[in-house]
């Protein structure tokens, strides 16, 4: 069902990762993303996989759920790996038939690609699994606040993002509800020709748009009633502070960075 989508959801389990400052989480995730692509041999890759699994374990979000999220991108992973396997002709030839050559370079790149994409998705989805959307946008707003100086409306953009994120579950719920209601009147969404299926979307999207506009007006009124007037002079209820947890996280990341760099220097790169 449409509600089963988990990527981008927030799972409050109260773990170590949840208690990290969202700003450090964003910076650290960016570091790891760079690191994932910087490592060039299996020692570095091993380190990264270990760390990723460690983070997953520390987050206390159930493995089953996290790997369910990975399932939806399995096709992409297989496709890119196969592409690498067939088109990379570096290294020794392992197998040759007709026009296809499979080389060690191809195999290694394929493995690297698959593992990298998995780690990439896992690390970045851990960010949303462990940070509530409001905190996340709040952190982005603060990290980007220097841009205010060159007249980028950071607060407005962050507020738009908060609202958008906030309403994703509401919209999903609403679509679910409208779909049920129209199905109860005999609408069939998964049968018929392409045009019939496209037409079947009308009874869902018309009410969805109408209700969204209604909701947008309501929200705007409610914000005005609470004297919202943009970011200028706004104080915060929750002031973000870096703590010992952030220090630990930064230390772990620094070690990982140094590790990958050393591995890259001392061992031969395989891709």
């Amino acid at each position, binding site marked *: 069902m449409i509600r089963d989508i988990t990527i981008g959801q927030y799972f409050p389990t109260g773990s170590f990762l949840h208690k990290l400052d969202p700003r450090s989480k964003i910076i650290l995730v960016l570091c790891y993303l760079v690191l994932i692509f910087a490592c060039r041999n299996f020692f570095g890759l091993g380190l990264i996989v270990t760390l990723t699994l460690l983070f997953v374990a520390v987050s206390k979000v159930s493995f089953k759920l996290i790997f369910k999220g990975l399932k939806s991108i399995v096709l992409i992973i297989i496709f890119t790996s196969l592409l690498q396997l067939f088109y990379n002709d570096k290294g020794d030839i392992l197998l040759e038939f007709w026009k296809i050559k499979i080389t060690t370079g191809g195999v290694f790149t394929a493995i690297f690609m698959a593992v990298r994409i998995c780690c990439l998705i896992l690390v970045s989805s851990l960010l949303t699994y462990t940070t509530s959307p409001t905190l996340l946008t709040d952190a982005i707003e603060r990290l980007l606040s220097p841009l205010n100086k060159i007249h980028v409306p950071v607060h407005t953009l962050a507020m738009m993002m908060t609202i958008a994120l906030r309403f994703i579950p509401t919209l999903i719920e609403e679509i679910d509800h409208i779909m049920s209601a129209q199905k*109860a*009147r005999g609408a069939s969404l998964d049968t018929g020709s392409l045009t019939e299926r496209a037409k079947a979307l009308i009874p869902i999207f018309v*009410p969805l748009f109408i209700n969204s506009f209604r909701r947008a007006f309501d929200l705007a009124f409610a914000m005005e009633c609470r004297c919202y007037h943009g970011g200028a002079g706004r104080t915060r209820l929750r002031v973000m502070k870096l703590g010992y947890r952030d220090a630990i996280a930064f230390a772990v990341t620094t070690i990982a960075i140094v590790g990958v760099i050393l591995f890259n220097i001392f061992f031969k790169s395989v891709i």
Partner: protein
Amino acid sequence: MSVVIKTENISYIYGEGTPFEIRALDDVSVNIESSKIVALIGHTGSGKSTLIQHLNALLKPDSGRVLFDNKDINESKKTAYDIKFKVGLCFQYPEYQLFESTVFEDIAFGPKNMKLPKEEIEKRVIRSCRFVGLGDQFLNKSPFDLSGGEKRRVAIAGIIAMEPEVLILDEPTAGLDPQGKEQIKRLIVDYAKKTGRTVIIVSHSMEDVAEIAEKIIVMNKAKVSMCGTVDEVFSRADELIAMSLNIPQVTYICNELRNQGYDIPAGIYTFDAAVAVLTKLGKGK
């Protein structure tokens, strides 16, 4: 009396395998007899809406069966689709699901999906529109120009036009003014009387339930905790109150008067019955 819908030990869990797992139905078995008005009551979150969505195969039970005329409605895709026309379900706040450009087209959506001939569709639309108390002049209006109560009636007409054997209404009077509530209530009673079909109504108003229902099903924490006639259910006031439910206010008053020594029989659930008893009492003096 014959049983139209029967659920056999159905259970349903929302979000199975996630941290947000909620058991919304737990081993629920109920019988819905034909040509009765059945009321479904229960504290908010007790699983009423979930249960009724099982009765027309919108939700499939995780375990257990739902039978319509003794046939499993989830047997195949086709039976699960066809049941929608036999068991018409009108959701809570149905006015937010209107989408067509005219009232006529919107009411015709269900009958069109039934692949009925054009004349029949037209007949049914006009009939159900009149039935819910909207004049023919409404048929060409845009549903979005109507008032909340009128929209609600258009939505109900859209279900009635499919002429389902069982009509299910989820809190049809929620958010309406007193007059609107009264009208919808009359409409339901009329519908049941005129067509002789079964109506299931989810309601939070004990007064309404006492007035129109012939059978009451009480849900509590995903289970059916009571099931019986108005008398059988409302005579167990203490248990109802323990479930954050209530008995009709007139029943309270009459019970209190009886405790004070007045000659008032037990089992006064409606306003009219109370008036009759109290007038008699007054004249007797």
